């Protein structure tokens, strides 16, 4: 079971698993436990999962979150994969899910998730993080809170510093 970090830096365990995209010609193999499946495959057959409340989706960094418009809040968890920590597309995906599609449930960062990117992820709307296994999970709380404020509005605040200063 993976250790999951939450935005306040606490650690919990849960048993959501990521179901990889099946190879061509293979079918999706859904386990008997909470599962995150490729978002487009969920969309293509979402009626099959109506009886389960433990199915979420994951998006890869090149995928468009807009495909989930209108149905996002049917999902208890959406994970965004960072194939490489230097691939910054996941930050835009997260903000779009939160700010454009109004996703309200759990948004999870998975993949090449390292300590020094956590605070950016938090500001963009992620609220859980599965750190890459070799990283020290006990340092996450500190890394999530290096900064007490930011200059910009983002998912975490509607008040950019220039508005806070003016008020």
């Amino acid at each position: 079971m993976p250790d999951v970090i939450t935005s306040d830096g606490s650690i919990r365990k849960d048993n959501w698993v990521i179901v990889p995209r099946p190879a061509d010609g293979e079918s999706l193999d859904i386990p008997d436990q909470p599962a995150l499946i490729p978002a487009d495959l969920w969309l293509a057959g979402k009626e099959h999962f109506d009886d389960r409340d433990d199915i979420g989706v994951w998006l890869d960094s090149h995928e468009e979150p807009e495909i989930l418009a209108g149905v996002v809040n049917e999902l208890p968890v959406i994970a965004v994969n960072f194939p490489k920590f230097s691939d910054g597309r996941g930050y835009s995906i997260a903000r779009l899910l939160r700010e454009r599609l109004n996703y309200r449930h759990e948004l999870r960062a998975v993949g090449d998730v390292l300590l020094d990117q956590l605070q950016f992820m938090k500001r963009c709307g992620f609220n859980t993080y599965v750190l890459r296994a070799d990283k020290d999970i006990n340092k996450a709380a500190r890394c999530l809170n290096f900064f007490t404020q930011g200059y910009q509005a983002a998912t975490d605040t509607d008040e950019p510093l220039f508005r806070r200063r003016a008020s």
Partner: protein
Amino acid sequence: MYVYDEHDRQMAAERVAQFRDQTERALAGELSEDEFLPLRLQNGLYVQRLAPMLRIAVPYGMLRSVQLRRLARITRDYDKGYAHFTTRQNVQLNWPAIEDVPDILAELAEVEMHANQTSGNCIRNTTTDQFSGVQADEITDPRPYCEIVRQWSTFHPEFAFLPRKFKVAVNASEHTDRAAIQVHDIGLQMVRNDQGELGFRVHVGGGLGRTPMVGPVIREFLPELDLLTYLEAVLRVYNRYGRRDNKFKARIKILVKALTPEGFAAKVEDEWSHIKDSPTRLTEEAISQFKGYFTEPDRQPVPDVTDALATQRFENREFDQWISHNVDTHKNPGYAIVTLTMKKTGTPPGDASDRQLEQIADLADQYSFGEVRVTHQQNVVLADVRKDQLFELWQVITPMGFATANLNTLTDVICCPGGDYCALANAKSIPVAESIQRQFDDMDYLYDIGNIDLNISGCMNACGHHHVGNIGVLGVDKKGQEFYQISLGGSSHHDAAIGKILGPSFAREDMPEVMQKIINVYVDNRTEEEPFLDTYRRIGIEPFKERVYA
């Protein structure tokens, strides 16, 4: 100029603490080199050919004397006693030790300086015209907008891992462009629309490097309040769709070209339509708050010294040349803009010793309200000098080596550090600059051939902006030997153009002679008062080719 408030100070301190923590983890082996790389780059730290290099941000080129003195002290305490002014209005140290960098950043933070985002695949230091706020022909002072962009782009959570680096430049003069905005990822030209409202003409997708391009206009008029939401839309489109599979095709210019400027603009407009009224939209109050930091200094009425100056110029030819070349017109008739040239032959262009940095600080305090501006041509500007103090100032700076009256001439070379320092370089650039400066050491001849931008880069990353030099020089490596390719006809101004390659490259020792031949072609063909670039545009590249390769 801008002064930190408690928010800026807190974030600056937190940034230093964060980088100290990151450096400790890197030195302890908890961060791999690959993982530490973007973290150190976004704090200005490169690992170079001979030593690390630290690039310190000078937001839109503005420095206070106290900051110059601190830089001087840092070069003494942590480096070899000199610094280098870069082509992006920043300052570089060439010899810091990696483990000292957190301490250096802490010392910088004490004087409201930092090295944030001076490298890495993020939004870099916003640059502008070094004459902002003191020239007569500007639409408005662009610096408050530069500071607005600086704050918005600093630690932006969505745009810290872009496909590639991202540079924004702002220009507000109607007739000149000293900020080279059309060769930036985003170039913002301040304009007023028919209703007299202030805004920006937005260029996107200019740039130098491997695929030089002049940035097309993607929006003719962007109202000032919409600046940040629109930038956010451009960056989001780039972050999502810019290429990440090939480093050499990852700049936004490649995306703009692939989508066409119209197609790219449509994507930006679509994104913008969702966020234009978001909380990121600027307010009148916010803009006027930022403008409040860039007020007019306490200039005094200066007696009319026209006659006295004329006499001094008549009696002293060198002073006269210095006034003609290194002094520019100020919007206030009692004041003048003085450029201190950092291009004395024999010194690498843009280098300043610790002592010189302190001298510049003293000059700023004594003659220009304690402030200076760094230019992208690697010189330093005193923007507010009383006209009745010009002669005295000239006498003071001449022995310091800041009065070489070659501003904008052939020997006012823009030059990257090149193979002497930089790990990326294919060839040395400083010795080429020096050999050309020596070839053209006759000042009368230099003035006769007029203003010519000579830009030298040691590799195709183009830190020396060679593509937009009237004459550009690019160092190339051929089987381990250094050669130099010449291009002609580039411009970084309103008439921006990418230079055309003359032909096969030359050995370093041939460069002064080749340069002389190029200038001879110009002199033989020019009409009266015709600058080099105009002659080139009229006669084309062929006559130059024929002479040089004869």
